[in-house]
């Protein structure tokens, strides 16, 4: 399988040299409540009052709007089907937690959303993945990945300064580099939103790998935020971190959900209960059950969910 990254990128004209403006999310404008002739999937907000929708960090209402969805998505590594006919939505304004025993396909599902799974030559995909009413296959892969950011299990800042890490995604190929002056406000803003600004504001030129693990992971969040993604995929982002760093990152995630749709894979059911608005339980590649966090944890419909969740909650 040819990887898309290998192909030369044409047409990066002068427009491509200008860093993308961060989309300012004005809450009243992000959600046109669509009624009547709307033919897409059901609007999750339809018929609800804003205050019935997910709550932000300060308890203020947050609008929920679909950003991505999969339709009958299956992924197989060779003969082994790792994800089976999964249909799920990813909405802005809420945190979606993917839970399930290890090996059930959570990472595979997550990596398919930004087409990172294509890096595995054996992986075959069927079914559709849609970002903003457009199949992800129709996107240029680099463009798709700057709209769907990802965070990994291990913090992995690049061996360069803190500033350069955050600016990494903004710098374009080619001779023209955006000047530091243009990048600076975006970098500062991304660090602020990732909750790291106060700790690093005085040493932006220090090497990123000298930060602590928790700081590194927040730097990776900032690095993703700098390219203003609409969706942020987090694959067990706290599994390598101590409890204090974990709770800081959880707070950051909740803060972010009003601007970015968040999907988090976690082994930790308590963590899912703390931060998720919606929970999806996977088992052996099947999407067993998905629903509001309170429902999945409090009153699971499926027996397999009950067995799994019951173990974690006594």
């Amino acid at each position, binding site marked *: 399988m040819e990887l898309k*990254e290998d192909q030369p990128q044409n047409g990066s004209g002068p427009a491509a040299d200008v860093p993308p403006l961060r989309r300012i999310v004005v809450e009243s404008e992000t959600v046109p409540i669509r009624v009547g002739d709307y033919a897409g999937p059901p609007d999750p907000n339809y018929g609800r009052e804003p205050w019935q929708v997910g709550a932000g960090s300060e308890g203020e209402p947050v609008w929920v709007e679909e950003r991505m969805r999969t339709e009958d998505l299956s992924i197989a590594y060779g003969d082994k089907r790792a994800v089976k006919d999964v249909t799920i939505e990813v909405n802005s304004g809420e945190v979606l937690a993917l839970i399930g025993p290890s090996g059930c396909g959570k990472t595979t599902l997550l990596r398919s959303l930004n087409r990172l799974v294509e890096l595995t030559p054996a992986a075959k995909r069927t079914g559709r993945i849609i970002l903003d009413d457009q199949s992800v296959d129709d996107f240029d892969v*680099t463009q798709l*990945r700057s709209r769907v*950011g990802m965070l990994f299990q291990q913090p*992995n800042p*690049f061996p360069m300064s803190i500033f350069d890490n955050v600016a*990494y995604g903004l710098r374009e190929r080619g001779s023209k580099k955006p000047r530091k002056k243009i990048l600076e406000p975006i970098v500062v803003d991304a660090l602020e939103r990732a909750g790291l600004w106060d700790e690093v504001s005085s040493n932006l030129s220090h090497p990123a790998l000298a930060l602590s693990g928790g700081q590194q992971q927040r730097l990776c969040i900032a*690095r*993703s935020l700098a390219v203003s993604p609409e969706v942020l995929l987090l694959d067990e982002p706290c599994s390598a971190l101590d409890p204090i760093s974990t709770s800081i990152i959880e707070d950051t995630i909740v803060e972010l959900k009003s601007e970015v749709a968040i999907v988090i894979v976690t082994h930790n059911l308590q963590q899912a209960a703390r931060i998720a608005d919606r929970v999806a339980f996977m088992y052996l590649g099947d999407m067993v059950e998905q629903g509001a966090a309170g429902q999945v944890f409090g009153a699971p419909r499926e027996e397999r969910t009950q067995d799994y969740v019951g173990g974690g909650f006594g």
Partner: protein
Amino acid sequence: MSIDVRTAAPGPRPGPGSDPTDPRPKPKPSMSAAAGISHETGWSVGDRVGLVAAWVCGISLCVVAASIVLFMAWKGIQFLHLDMLTTSPEASLDQSKTGGFLDPLVGTLLLTVIGIAFAVPTGVAIAVWLTEYGRPSGLARLVESGVEIVAGTPSIVLAIFGLLVFQQSFMGIFSFTAEGGAVFGRSFLTAGAMMALIALPLVIGSTREALNTIPRHVREASYALGKDKASTIRRVLLPSARSGIATGATLGMGRICGDTAIVVILLGASMQTTPESGFLGLFRGTGSTLTSYVYNNSPAGEGNAPDKAYAAAFVLLMIVILLNFVVSLIGKRNKPQWN
């Protein structure tokens, strides 16, 4: 440690199981392994001899290394004068009139720079291709064996091969061409090109090692930010492998400094640096290096200036020791560490 010593012991140790007629019961493997560290049953005569041999060998090596350095330092400091580093060699039967070895010293540095300037970009490119692309895998294996063959070829063979290649008439621009059109084939450029082959496997090896230690998720993090493979290599992987590349380059420089065969065959016989006229004349000209200077002036050579040979050999040794020191310095710092 005792287990290492046992394996180093010369000759097989007769024991139960080694002789088919032995009536003793054969011990299970785990038992015999336990016996190796046991203080009661272990340490047969063979073990003791092996242990003593290991100690003796280790200590003798230290003695050899120390005597090389001390003897060369003693001779070197005795004969070395600073003005030797700043005067050119002269042909004379009287040793006191043979001048210094400025030209060979500069020649060593020049040849090393040329060789490494060829070897580093090529070696890094090959290492990147092997670790990041490496497909089809048959081709990758072919490239790997190519690297191994180059690494295993004696430098005298590389030198004579280089002469063959660079004496072709279309290679004339790299060296001096005589009136009749015969290409001399010997110059800093042609010797440097062959020196690059000596350094190349070292550069490839340590660059590959450095690239292989970068976890896969670091590459994926770059892809996940919308970068393609080329910019990931340039902006993340190569900077991460910087200290590995530097280590390989420094090791390669050490090898180039110390090689004699290529210099003797491909750099010409002139003691003094003799540039050609015209563009890049210095590089197309001939000269000498510390190794060829030592070779020519040693009691075994033609020029009879053994004192100068010792002094030059000492300088060469110092350069190589310095390079090794740099290698260990690079190894200690600047290595990006992910968990």
